[in-house]
């Protein structure tokens, strides 16, 4: 298991907290908690070690596009980058209002 932290500048406020997904095979769980700070803070815990760079790229691209002010917890069980992006988008959708940067 590996724990990683990422941080991105953010400008968009989020309406609600959100929870999607399951820590099950090929999937992940995402918790989104709105924050007042102008940044996105992401903590990733994953069972698949050695993919720091991939995580950095996937999350970097996503939060560059959706600059939401939030603390985000990701609990991963081997999801592919595509699934990760989908779950993140789903979490923001559940959370309510977000705008594209």
């Amino acid at each position, binding site marked *: *298991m590996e724990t990683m932290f990422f941080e991105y500048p953010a400008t968009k406020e989020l309406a609600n*907290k959100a*929870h999607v997904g*399951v*820590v*099950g*095979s090929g*999937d992940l*769980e995402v*918790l989104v*908690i709105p924050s007042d700070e102008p940044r996105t803070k992401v903590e990733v*815990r*994953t*069972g698949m070690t050695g993919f720091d760079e991939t995580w950095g790229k996937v999350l970097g691209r996503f939060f560059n596009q959706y600059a939401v002010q939030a603390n985000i*917890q990701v*609990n*991963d*069980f081997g999801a592919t980058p595509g699934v990760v992006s989908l779950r993140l988008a789903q979490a923001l959708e559940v959370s309510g209002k977000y705008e594209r940067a």
Partner: protein
Amino acid sequence: MNVLKVSFVELNARERIKSLLDEGTYRELLDPFDGFESPHLERQNIVPQSDDGVVIAKGEINQQPAVIISIEGNFQGGGIGEVSGAKIAGALELALRDNKEGIPTRPILLYDTGGVRLQEANYGLLAIAEIGAAMVALREYTSVIGVIPGKIGCFGGMSLTAGLCSSLVMTKEGRLTLNGPEVIEQEAGIEEFDSQDRQLIWNTIGGEQRYSLGFVDKLADDDVESIKKIIVNQLDHKDTHRFRSEQVDLYRSRIQKIDPSQLLSPLDVRRVWNETVAEKRAGDESDRSEENPDESRGRTWFTGLTDTAKSDDVPSVLCTDKTVGDERIRYIAVVPDSNNRFPRARKGEVGLEEGWAIAHYVREVIEQDEDGNRRAIVAIVDVPSQAYGYNEELLGLHQAGAAAVDAYAKARQAGHPVITLIVGNAISGAFLTHGLQSNHILALNDEGVNIHVMSKQSAARITRRTIEELEKATKKIPAMAYDVVSFATLGALHELIDGVEASHPKCEDIEKIEGRIIAAIASARSGPLDLSNRLQSLQAIDNRLASIKVRERLKELW
């Protein structure tokens, strides 16, 4: 009208609850943001889940107040750990409180579980005992409804709790069994059960098979609306039938008519099942002469404490009454019997006959003492495991176990002091069945006393680790260790007794233990009738903190 079906099985744990509760009434307790994940998984390099794989929500079903407990099969195979177990037990305990106070909260369990989460081993075992205790108490007030939709199904210790449900609903896709096919194959060989043979698996433990033998009440289509309809219908079924786990005479009569020397076909069993009526079994001590009884610690201690070596009709379950001072005590022990009709239960395992016989002996005490002085019951525990076999599962080993759990819990709740004395192994489903429902557990502090949920070989196979990796993990997590001293740190033991010759007790050892039993009985007579004392010990406050905190927080949110 043709309505499109919406699959219930495909929904996750949370969506399943939402699909059942009346719209707009869903309120989740201990939700993912409450911060109650497993404190034990990260240390074993496993990513935890924010709700620990169990969702608890209150709401209304058909305008009646309900609490639905839903297990997420996709997270760690729906395994029951400390937090997830405490969420289930805590919710049931609060539903019990509600019903006692006249609030008719309906409890519904959506099963999707492999049983005890092996990474949290004895935490799961203790939690499942607490879940069973709450269910037996709750059933007296309201229907406890269980649903096994499928994908994982309902396995291990949780299958015993399914056997306690007032009403059980299953789909064809569901499976219900104490020992999973992989475990049976590991423990008894591929000739006994080929865990790759899907058809065999569903023909043995699948929903249709379970329904045809009467182990479940309703077979449901995998469709949200029909499952909801069935649940609503079952809500008011309270007085219409006896609980399955109470039908001891019927199941004993059925099992007696079975020839277990070969692998049975489901069709044969169905025929025998339907032809059999409940009969009280007559004890036939005469032709069961015990000339060369198989030695075991259980037998040694039973004989030492009771001065007898008598068994009634099942040679592997010893039972006798003895008066010590003012206390009348019924002693019960499961022992090896190399002539056991069921080959898989010859080494002292708890099998079908054993589970139902225990239930019989305990219920006899409850019935005989109904209007007066309630005698004590002492379970002498030396059980290497439950019986691993194809016939065992086909004939409903989980139901035999549930019957024993039911009987012990009922006796305790009725005011019989129930004491467990662990003199040897106390393992897994066998321990849940025989020993874990007591007011007080006493254990001998001895190397030959082991308490755990699965043999190391099987546990390693199921969790995909080597035995070395497993042993390393047990050093970090006391609940995973196999020795009694580690188990004692969890706070469920009333007393760990030192300085006794466990294998060959001398007279003074027997006297000493008898004294401790009498003291434990006295303490039980003035103590609570539920299992709450297990969480109030000093060790529990240290080592089962999450079990306590989960309950406290649930109570606040309830």
